[in-house]
């Protein structure tokens, strides 16, 4: 197998730390796995050599250039070793290392391993020490251009923006991303993040703009769940049924843009009308239509969520229905007793 051969070849070419004269004064410290190890990893020679030496440095609390160089090797072998990263940060400060160089280093490491927690945290620390966020938005945009949904990247981006108040141009950036992929849920989330932290949604002209923008995206791709969720999300506070003309706009879409998401949205809207006891709507009609759509979703259009839609239906009947109390079984519900609860709390008897 080519990979195994390559590794064998590479290991033969390695000059182990334990054999280098500049390291001769340091006795490597083998890992203390005990006499009968479990989950024992068959480390390569190189891995063992580097980490045996790392343990020696750690034990002596050595703060030197050679220690710093060793952390680079250790990170290369396992970038998830947070103990090594911590030590590297101690050394960066103790040796007063060039943090600009460190930024270059961490940039390269993240490009190579963008889904690792430690590398992003390290970058954040260096940015904080330098108090210089000037490269961050561009860097994160670079990473996102390779994977537009990288969770760590978005987390870093939000941290930079909040910490250094860099809100300008972000809405434009989000719109670019949505142009490229209107289904990018991370971008929709970022849209919400930016607006929340700048204008907010309470201004009716902002809310209008957002509703219209979202409906436009929905018309382009009616089966895009993100857009429907966003529409729902921004109207929660005000209430779906309170937004003027929304019911009309959405029912209009039914002919050309029908999707289970449209139907579900209507259920949410009807439910909101019932909850707010809105005089703009015929309460009985809202109730009947909501139940009808729940049934339609449960039995035909969204059967994977059958249990959920049946529950919504029962809840609506229970709260707004005029008939007998509804339960999931044909028998009247027994009074809740604690024995029916899955045992969860430590303090449960």
């Amino acid at each position, binding site marked *: 197998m080519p990979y195994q051969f390559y590794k064998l070849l590479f290991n033969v070419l390695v000059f182990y730390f334990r054999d280098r004269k500049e390291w001769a004064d340091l006795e490597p410290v083998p890992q203390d796995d005990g006499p009968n190890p479990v*989950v*024992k990893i068959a480390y390569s020679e190189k891995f063992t050599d580097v980490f045996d030496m790392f343990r020696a440095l750690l034990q002596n609390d050595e703060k030197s250039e050679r220690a710093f160089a060793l952390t680079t090797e250790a990170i290369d072998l396992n970038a998830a070793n947070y103990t090594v990263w*911590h030590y590297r940060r101690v050394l960066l400060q103790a040796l007063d290392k060039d943090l600009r160089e460190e930024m270059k280093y961490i940039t390269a490491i993240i490009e190579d391993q963008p889904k690792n927690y430690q590398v992003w945290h390290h970058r954040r620390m260096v940015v904080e020490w330098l108090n210089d966020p000037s490269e961050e938005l561009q860097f994160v945009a670079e990473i996102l251009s390779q994977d*537009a949904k990288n969770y760590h990247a978005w987390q870093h981006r939000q941290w930079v923006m909040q910490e250094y108040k860099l809100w300008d141009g972000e809405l434009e950036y989000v719109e670019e991303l949505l142009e490229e992929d209107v289904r990018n849920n991370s971008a929709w989330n970022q849209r919400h993040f930016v607006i929340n932290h700048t204008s907010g949604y309470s201004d009716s002209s902002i809310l209008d703009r957002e509703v219209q923008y979202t409906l436009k995206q929905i018309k382009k791709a009616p089966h*895009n769940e993100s857009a429907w969720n966003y529409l729902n999300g921004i109207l929660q506070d005000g209430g779906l049924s309170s937004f003027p003309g929304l019911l009309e706009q959405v029912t209009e879409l039914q002919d050309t843009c029908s999707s289970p998401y449209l139907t579900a949205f209507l259920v949410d809207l009807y439910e909101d009308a019932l909850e707010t006891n809105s005089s703009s709507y015929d309460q009985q009609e809202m109730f009947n239509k909501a139940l009808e759509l729940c049934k339609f979703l449960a039995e035909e259009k969204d059967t994977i969520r059958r*249990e959920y839609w049946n*529950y919504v239906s029962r809840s609506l009947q229970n709260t707004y229905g005029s008939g007998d*109390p*509804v339960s999931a079984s044909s028998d009247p519900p027994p009074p809740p007793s604690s024995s029916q*609860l899955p045992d969860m709390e430590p303090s449960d008897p």
Partner: protein
Amino acid sequence: MEEASPPLRCFRESHSSELFSDDGVQTVTSKEQRKVERSIQEVYSVYQQIHTSPQPALLREQHYHYLKKGLRHLSDAYECLDASRPWLCYWILHSLELLEEPVPAAVASDVCQFLARCQSPTGGFGGGPGQHAHLAPTYAAVNALCILGTEEAYKVINREKLLDFLYSVKQPDGSFVMHVGGEVDVRSAYCAASVASLTNIITPTLFDGTHNWILSCQNWEGGLGGVPGLEAHGGYTFCGTAALVILGKEHMLDLKALLRWVTSKQMRFEGGFQGRCNKLVDGCYSFWQAGLLPLLHRALFKEGDSTLSESSWMFEREALQEYILLCCQNPGGGLLDKPGKSRDFYHTCYCLSGLSVAQHFGNKDLHNELILGRDENRLAPTHPVYNICPEKVAQAIEHFHQLPVPVQTGPTPSAMDQS
């Protein structure tokens, strides 16, 4: 031609109507989704050709051998998990307990001794001997020890130092960093709440502000992000919700919005769960996402909801079992993310945990089993908060509640040195 056993959901005529509709607008998201759906269709068609009467089988023997070997030896491919060895112990031990395979006493003792070497002198557990303490391996180590459930296992944990460690990572805003000088996200609150509740070290101040911080992670989608402002994500949503259940504050979430979000994460075609909206199915979310339904069921029940189902969690249990059994098993043992991916112990643990959640509804008094395929596919039930078997949870809690809550001896919580 009549089928002897009821047809699997994925083999029904109408199933192809569940394929993703891209509305003629192709994007990276839709292309990736369709690729996965095609590969799943391939799996289904191969399966139908081989089996005339589909009875999906859990490959118990194969999984057992994979797990048994891994508990002792791992190839160098696992160098990347050298800072997560307690996790490997937990993933493997939990998988074995779900399969109801006993762990020999000698092996159990070896695990105890190994985890003892992972314990930091300043409290908590690190990813390996000599590594700094970190909340994730701490969570895994405590869970692994509770699965073993022997006196020796319980005695490994230095409760006083563990409490000191938790205080050392506690932040003024109620959150926790994962390790000293490390990052904050909602996983840490879950890890802290889990170990503290199991080992009975919760003091009056330990979780001050924590529930409010977790609540601020619930976003416009209804799920929770890793930190406030981030996209709703299955792993983080599970951690936040389970932590709140432990703290007794789950009712403070918008439960309806959360329920709506998580139920919409089950994929209509694949049957498994995605981690985030418009992303791909992954076997591990069988636990992180589906595992939320038992938590929500209980939370709603406690709120006085009388319309909850008395026979099922609010997700398609059969569809999830189909996905796991047909698409997530490696024939040589071990489970995985989706067809085409490699097996690993993390996916083995969480696919099996999700399978268990799908099979078992209720608790010891009110129990409804839905086993897809042969009866031999039945796994042991798992506790939806801790994800170890309920008996082990009860046993651990009983043991540690006989001991007094330690007094905090370490430094008081403060903004820790950020190196």
